[in-house]
């Protein structure tokens, strides 16, 4: 069954098509949820809300661009909405911070997906959200500022801190390995 047929089936409220769509996308979308959530329970809730929203608003998909991208955007929105309710604090960094930590590529090249997920999940909420939105989802700092209702400079500083913290974690892992 092609993606188009699958979407049309879902629009007809065909349960089999909906289940198939879920099975095809649930894994990737659950990764998205895990990246934003604090724990797996919260990620499950986001996934549930997100897919319900996908099915209820599928008629708004205009068949322009990637369908997976559209679903991913819906899931990210759900995750952000949920996090907004928790009032995530984005601490401002005004002074220039020189990042002296150097991490060679070989230090992280061997890290697998699960390791990277753990590293991301260890980040504080604000760092994690900005890192996810900028590095993985590809939003600019201006867009992140609009999405999260913060200054673009705050987004930048959060990203700097997130990177620094990730590098430190990688160095720690390297030390343990040695």
């Amino acid at each position, binding site marked *: 069954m092609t993606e188009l047929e699958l979407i049309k089936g879902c629009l007809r409220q065909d*349960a089999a098509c*909906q*289940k198939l769509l*879920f*099975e095809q996308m*649930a*894994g*990737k979308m*659950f*990764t998205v949820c*895990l*990246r934003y959530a604090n724990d*797996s329970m919260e990620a*499950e809730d986001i*996934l*549930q809300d997100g*897919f*319900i929203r996908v*099915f*209820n*608003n599928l008629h*708004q998909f205009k068949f322009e661009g990637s369908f997976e991208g559209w679903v991913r955007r819906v899931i990210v*929105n759900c995750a*952000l*909405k949920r996090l*907004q309710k928790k009032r995530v604090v984005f601490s401002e960094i005004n002074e220039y911070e020189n990042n002296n930590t*150097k*991490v*060679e*590529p070989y230090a*992280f*090249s061997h*890290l*697998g*997906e699960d390791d*990277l*997920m753990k590293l*991301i999940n260890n980040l504080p909420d604000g760092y994690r959200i900005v890192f996810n939105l900028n*590095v*993985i989802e590809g939003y600019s700092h201006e867009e992140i500022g*609009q*999405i*999260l*209702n913060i200054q673009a400079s705050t987004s930048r500083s959060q990203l700097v801190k997130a*990177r620094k913290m*990730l*590098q430190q974690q990688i160095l720690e892992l390297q030390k343990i390995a040695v």
Partner: protein
Amino acid sequence: MEQNLLDKHFKDKLSNYASPVPQGMWERIAAEKDRKPKVIWWWNNKSFLLIGILAITASIVGFVQYQNEKHESPKVTSTLNNKNNNLTEESVSINTNQKAAIEKTVVQNASSTSNTAEQQNKSTILEEANKEKTNKKSTATHYTQNKTNKNNYNSNLSEGNFTSPNTNKSVSTKKEFEKEDYNAKSSISNSNNNSNSLDESKTIEEIKKYNFGNANILKLNISKQNGLINKTIDNKKFEIRDCPSVDNRIRKDLFLEVYTAPEYTKKTVQATNPLYTNYANLKDSAESMVGGFTVGMRLATPLNKNWLLKAGLQYSQINERFSLQKETNRRTIVVVTTRTETDALGNTTIISDTTKYQQVDYSYTNGVGYYKNLELPVMLTYQFNSFSNTKLSLNAGLIINLSSWYKGTVISPTYQLLNVSKQENADIYKTKVGLSFVGSLNISKVVNERLDLFAEPYFRFNITNNQQSSYDIKQKFSAIGLSLGLKYNLHYSRNHF
């Protein structure tokens, strides 16, 4: 460079990584998915909604029709004299029934008190009194009063039946027995309320004659109950709504109201998702309301004396002004001013002043937008009693949006300026807004027998949002306005009294 490599590593690894999904996730989603949409599925189903509206309308019309038939007047003859004769006959027959019931009550009383001579006397008095009342009743000439009496007789008959068991319980002493009889007599006198016609003093004298104890108590009872009945009669007089016509036709009013209304409109824009907060603020600041208007017509049919049902069709338009200031260019201009100063010793100093300033270019976009709506107002009206040419009524109801379209300039969530026509409407605004609540006060003045002129200040507000749900923005309108119009009675006939 290292940062870029690190970022790239994260993105490459995690962008398409699929984590194992917990067991039973789909079952949870399926259960939740099937539960939620049920709340509103019928609203999205046009045919179901239409059938529902038609069914409700048909039920209401059917009910009104049934009520009208139920309240149809009894047949009356063409002359007033004949009417009076018939009415008298009717009254007599009612009194006969009443008499039978009272006799039955007295017989019950008698059997429970070992048939004393005193009780026989009392029953005789009751019969006599009833006869007298019947005679007086035969002089009745007013149809409406007789109709009221009929109701009162029925209620008194019920009272008579109700008191008899109590009587059986309280016959142990003479005093109690007498009281019961006084009450029975009071009922009789009340039943004859056509003229307050039972002469109180005469009745009391009769009671005194037969040594019926404390006449003052009886007088009080009679006065009180007669007073109540008189009050009932006064109220009942004004409850008669349908005057019978000379040709026996029942009057069924149906009004057509045509109106137009200028409106002052207020819009609220609110982002339900932080993603759209800035967009909502920008949209709200760029768009300002410049009022609107409504024109329409509706039919009104009375449900009973005071209540009316109104339904119709109306077109409403809300106008707004669009004015957006947008930054198009920003540049920094550096101005360096150099001057040379030479002091008395011949030393030369070159001074350079550097000034930086930013130049920002803005573009202004102005336009007008129109929200156009085709609507179905359904209202319930309470009309206050009025004996003058000015009538007052209160209306409340719902306005069902049948179709809605926008025309004009609008800013999209991607901050693009769009010229929206009807075809593109669905992308930003809904084509069916949903429901609005409306409440109003109607003041009308009679122009002639068929025509009223009315003014109706009202308010309305959208219950549902008119922005597409995909944008997570709530845009709602509320309005106050003044309807001015004409009310025409379609079923008026000159044969009515």
